[in-house]
């Protein structure tokens, strides 16, 4: 059967596998396997699970070889030989190979088997038919391409047209920004702040309609789109809240409270874009809510001077003579145009803004409750209120818990603070301008709230900056807290006179401190200082400070007296050393002897020097050298 001359050798190709190709084209090969590695690899490939019993029953095609194999194998025949299974496999493989050679022999040698070719119809190879088929194919492919291109073109043109006047695209846009719902055939929208927490009674329902296109005027349709919103008549027009802080004479004249309606407002045109219209209408609603809330509070709150609500204006008193007026300006466009002189609008932007902010805060608090929200507690209760029961909170504490500043009270507080801050600024600026000698510098803190701010005032003498008096003013709602150098705290009222007095008093003390410092420099002896002199001319405010000092030799004595409103006074006394001083037994300390004698007033104005400190410096130097 098998022909022994045919040898089939199975060997690996002499090429190693490529492990990777580097970016520069270099190839890294897997190193070729050694003989032992190859053997183990091949041995692993053998299927050890294949039953050997199959082979046993199989008639072996090569009896001789088998016998030879048997002979070889006998020497290894041990039941526990590890390569036993490998040998069996190899044997099986050999059998397979033998069968394969048989099959190959059958095919190769014509004498075993003959294969006759089957006759087949030749395909029709006429060129005309081929051409026709190709043509048809091309035409159909072309039509597919053309239809696709047309569809693209159409969608493109549609898209460019739609951007301006497609009702549905506009509707989609409006739905993204506003709350809409369909009621029957019409589409209604809501522009109230109810979802943001507002509890205002007035509704803000608008209707969305489609504009029936009139092709005559293209310019307008471009700006307004193809969608129209119909806004309720009470929300038409433009509105804003105007806050004014005015100083009025003591007798408040109610007739001056006229209903102002500034006409110079940008009226919204009827053909404006819907987004604009809705925003303006929403603003009208917001302003109305704000004003209604303030008016309600103005009527409810009892204060020493009653708040007045007249028409669209609320008038309250911040300070005596300072009036806060909040006006709701609503211009609907239907009013008769009264030619008004262009009013000077001195409205307060900051307060207007904080009014808006306050209402938004109220809205926010209406829907957002302070965490945590236990599931077993009533919604909207604060933690303190929840614990009030188990902790036995008294009635008074419960009442205090509920007290919340109303909008009007808050805005009045802010107004008071703003007024007070302005006043303080004004007073400080005036003083800094008027008083040149000690320089007054004010450092305003950049961190402040709407109800509190802080300013540090430094008083220094030009050229003698070593001595510095500083005080801090904390400006509150209607009082000013002053913290002095010696950490005394003084509460000032809202009257600017009080602040002026305080600073003048501080300046008078500053003068004395400078002199005291100069005494140190010139080695003079300070005999006495007194910041609260009880004798002499009485000042309008505060007490005068005084200082007395003696020259190093003790023959010259200088005395100063400085008051807030009295000019600084300077006295000099020269003691003649030759003059026999009768030492009284009552004098315990020799320094008191220098007090005896008469002082001569020195005119400070006429002394040489630019500032008071320079003058004193000069005088002291002169006196020291003279003695």
């Amino acid at each position: 059967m098998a022909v022994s001359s045919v040898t089939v050798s199975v060997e690996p190709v002499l090429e190693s596998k490529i492990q990777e190709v580097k970016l520069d084209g270099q190839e890294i090969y897997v190193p070729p396997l050694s003989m032992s590695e190859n053997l183990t690899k091949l041995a692993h490939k053998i299927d050890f699970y294949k039953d050997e019993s199959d082979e046993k029953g199989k008639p072996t095609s090569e009896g001789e070889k088998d016998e030879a194999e048997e002979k070889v194998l006998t020497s290894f025949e041990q039941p526990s030989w590890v390569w036993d299974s490998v040998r069996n496999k190899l044997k099986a493989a050999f059998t397979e190979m033998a069968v394969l050679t048989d099959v190959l022999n059958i095919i190769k040698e014509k004498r075993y088997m003959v294969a006759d070719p089957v006759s087949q119809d030749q395909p029709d190879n006429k060129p005309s038919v081929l051409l026709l088929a190709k043509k048809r194919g091309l035409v159909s492919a072309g039509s597919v391409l053309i239809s696709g291109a047309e569809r693209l073109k159409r969608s493109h043109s549609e898209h460019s047209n739609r951007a301006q006047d497609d009702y549905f695209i506009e509707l989609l846009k409006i739905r993204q920004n506003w709350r809409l719902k369909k009621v029957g055939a019409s589409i209604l929208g809501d522009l109230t702040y109810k979802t943001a927490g507002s509890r205002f009674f007035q509704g803000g329902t608008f209707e969305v309609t489609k504009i029936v296109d009139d092709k005559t005027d293209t310019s307008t349709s471009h700006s307004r789109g193809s969608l129209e919103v119909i806004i309720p008549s009470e929300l038409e027009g433009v509105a804003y809240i105007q806050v004014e802080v005015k100083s009025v004479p003591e007798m408040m004249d109610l007739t001056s409270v006229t209903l102002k309606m500034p006409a110079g407002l940008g009226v919204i045109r009827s053909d404006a874009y819907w987004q604009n219209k809705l925003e303006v209408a929403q603003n009208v609603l917001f302003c109305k809510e704000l004003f209604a809330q303030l008016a309600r509070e103005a009527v409810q709150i009892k204060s020493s001077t009653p708040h007045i609500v007249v028409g669209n204006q609320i008038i309250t008193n911040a300070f005596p003579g300072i009036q806060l007026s909040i006006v709701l300006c609503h211009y609907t466009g239907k009013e008769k145009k009264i030619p008004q002189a262009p009013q000077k609008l001195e409205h307060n932007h900051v307060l207007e803004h904080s009014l808006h902010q306050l209402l938004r805060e109220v809205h926010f608090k209406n829907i957002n409750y302070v965490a945590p929200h236990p599931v077993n507690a009533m919604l909207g209760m604060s933690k303190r209120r929840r614990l009030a029961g188990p902790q036995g909170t008294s009635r008074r504490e419960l009442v205090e818990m509920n007290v919340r500043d109303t909008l009007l009270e808050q805005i009045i507080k802010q107004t008071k603070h703003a007024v007070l801050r302005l006043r303080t600024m004004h007073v400080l600026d005036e003083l800094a301008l008027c008083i040149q000698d000690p320089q007054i510098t004010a450092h305003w803190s950049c961190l402040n709230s709407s109800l509190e701010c802080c300013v540090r005032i430094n008083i220094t003498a030009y050229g003698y900056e070593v001595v510095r008096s500083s005080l801090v003013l904390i400006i509150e709602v209607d009082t000013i807290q002053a913290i002095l150098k010696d950490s005394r705290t003084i509460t000032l009222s809202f009257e600017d006179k009080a602040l002026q007095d305080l600073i003048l008093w501080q300046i008078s003390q500053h003068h004395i401190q400078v002199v005291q410092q100069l005494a140190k420099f010139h080695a003079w002896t300070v005999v006495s200082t007194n910041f609260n002199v009880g004798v002499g001319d009485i000042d309008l405010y505060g007490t005068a400070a005084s200082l007395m000092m003696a020259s190093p030799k003790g023959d010259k004595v200088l005395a100063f007296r400085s008051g807030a409103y009295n000019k600084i006074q300077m006295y000099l006394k020269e003691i003649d050393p030759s003059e026999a001083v009768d030492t009284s037994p009552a004098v315990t300390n020799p320094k008191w002897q220098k007090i005896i004698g008469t002082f001569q007033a020195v005119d400070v104005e006429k002394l040489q020097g630019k500032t008071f400190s320079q003058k004193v410096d000069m005088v002291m130097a002169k006196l020291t050298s003279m003695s």
Partner: protein
Amino acid sequence: MGVVCVYFYPVPEGKSGQQVVDGIQKQIELLGAVKTGNFCVDCETFQAGSGIQNTPQRQVNILHSSEQPASCFAILDTGTCLVADALFDGLMQKLKHYYQQRKGSKIESKGQRYEYGDFIFKVGSVSQASNFKGILVEIEYCPCVVAGDCMNLMKEMSQSLLGSAVAEQQSSFLKTKTDMIYTPADTMSQYLEHFNNFKKATSVNQAMNR
């Protein structure tokens, strides 16, 4: 919340309760106190476990005070006091099968409330099922929270206002809690003590009448 003393003011023979109340109120007004509305302390008794055998009858007293409107006080016989939210009443209704309200047990003290500086006076006439039972006078000293610290002051005030005979009686409850922080629950315990005394007195009276 300060320290509270509740005093029982006996009604002398031949005088009606209203007359005595008016007398005390007049005295307080003469002192310069300001009238600040009304007050009310009420107490309901619930009885437990009538259906369960071999268990002693247990009571729970539910008290409310107008001074602590958000709270509800539940006091057991043993003196244990639970201070809860006002919704506790609803819970008691749910427990109807176990705790049953005793008929006609609702007893309350109602009257005028006065403020005088740091003191609060409450003159209450006690009534059970619209029957007048007696008079309770409550004196509160607000700035203090420890009963022992202001006991003498309270005694002096009550002596001048109610007479020394009344001032001498001091609640056994307060005596035990002289150095602890005073809580509203303690006030309620005092009220309950007095209410129980009133109830006992009536039952004794009824027994005597029979």
